[in-house]
């Protein structure tokens, strides 16, 4: 049995807010692949609390292309749904590729993108790509709706600015943030499947016909206490023509924004990955294999 004090099935956001009003410690559960694992581990604030199920709430479902070109992903979309969705495959190949590397098939069927973001693991597979796409979260709370850029979400390992009663409803990406870009994601882990990234890197790039970089976005997982972008490297890359030296300089500049420390791998090895992964990802993305 899970160590919970009760379960509420919310059929609407109003239901969620009503439960939170009477029990601020109640915790939202989506796919369960993170919350129920932490519950089994008796992690603080995950056990001996009531759970609120949100799987039936319509606003959190489905992937849409809005008339202004914005791609809107429901927070409850599973990794599998995102990987196979035609809109995502056509316009956000980097995200489709990143979520295809989550866990094993069962986890991809159960786990949700909203849960992956809200649990804020430093190595969460969807975060670097969503950072690169400048994703904006639509958050509803008892006091109304607000829009939060994902780069303002994370405050520390497994920590976010979200308050009890905040529900991430949708993840939106504007047309200008995906059109004309190509990307690639690399995940470093001990096993290919069923593992959490030891380190990961996403690169999203737009070049002109002369191979000049119009825009570059690089984001890392598990290379700092939170998933991070690499603004120093991105600024350096602006307008440069791709060459081995430029890629090398981009990689080196990334160290200004990552904060690695020795853990399962040494700091030297981690920093090496920080410097080489962006260039490899850029070249793979531009080859158009993915």
């Amino acid at each position, binding site marked *: *049995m*899970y*160590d*919970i004090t*009760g*379960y509420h*099935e919310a059929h609407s956001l109003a239901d969620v807010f009503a439960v939170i009003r009477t029990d601020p410690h109640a915790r939202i*559960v989506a796919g*369960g*692949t993170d919350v*129920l*694992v932490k519950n*089994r*581990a008796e992690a603080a604030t995950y056990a001996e609390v009531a*759970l609120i*199920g949100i*799987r039936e709430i319509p606003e959190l479902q489905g992937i849409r292309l809005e008339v202004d070109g914005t791609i809107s992903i429901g927070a409850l979309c599973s990794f*599998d*749904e995102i990987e*196979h969705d035609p809109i995502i495959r056509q316009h956000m190949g980097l995200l489709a590729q990143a979520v295809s590397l989550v*866990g*094993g*098939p*069962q*986890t991809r*069927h*159960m786990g949700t993108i909203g849960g992956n973001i809200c649990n804020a693991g430093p190595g969460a597979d969807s975060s670097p790509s969503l950072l690169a796409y400048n994703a904006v979260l639509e958050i509803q709370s008892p006091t109304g709706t607000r829009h939060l850029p994902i780069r303002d979400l994370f405050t520390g390992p497994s920590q976010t600015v979200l308050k009890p009663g905040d529900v991430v409803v949708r993840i939106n990406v504007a047309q200008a943030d995906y059109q004309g870009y190509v990307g690639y994601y690399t995940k470093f882990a001990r096993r*290919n*499947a*069923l593992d959490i990234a030891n380190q990961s890197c996403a690169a999203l790039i737009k070049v002109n016909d002369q191979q000049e970089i119009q825009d570059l976005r690089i984001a890392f997982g598990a290379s700092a206490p939170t998933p991070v972008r690499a603004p120093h490297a991105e600024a350096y890359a602006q307008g440069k023509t791709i060459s081995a030296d430029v890629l090398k300089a981009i990689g080196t500049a990334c160290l200004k924004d990552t904060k690695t420390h020795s853990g399962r791998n040494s700091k030297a090895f981690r920093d090496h990955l920080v410097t080489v992964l962006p260039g490899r990802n850029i070249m793979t993305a531009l080859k158009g294999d993915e």
Partner: protein
Amino acid sequence: MKQTIAFTLNGEAVSCDVDVRQSLIEVLRDEFEMTGVKEGCSVGECGACTVIIDGQTMESCLYMAVWANGKNITTIEGVAAEDGHLDNVQQAFVDAGAVQCGYCTPGMVLSSEQLLADNPNPTRDEIRRGLSGNMCRCTGYQKIVDAVELAAKNGGVKTDNRNKIPFHVAN
């Protein structure tokens, strides 16, 4: 903290009272005696507890029993024919020597059923990816991959079982 749930289990409409704290695997094993569903790790890492829910493999150790309400669920017990004849995938596991202690086998077979329903002629790499959520501590996996290849060659997921196995291939 009781709640009544009703769902389809291996083609049959069933219902029962569950404690909201229960996981699906507890209900399947304890209330319905579906002991082919194995618990290995309880935290979503080994795949021994795999069942098929509305056409998708999921881990029943990380699935709240109350979520089963209204769902269509297949366990390994729903795969063989009524008279006990093994289905194509099960037979291929036997013929390829893919079973040692057998603890992973129910989950492996269900993941293989789903894989072959989605992709009737998988490559060995596709088979490995399709089974990557299931761990086996005995076989070293080669014979399991052989078994899935053999099942594909022998016609994949047989249609007479498909009305029992609710695959709605979504993608």
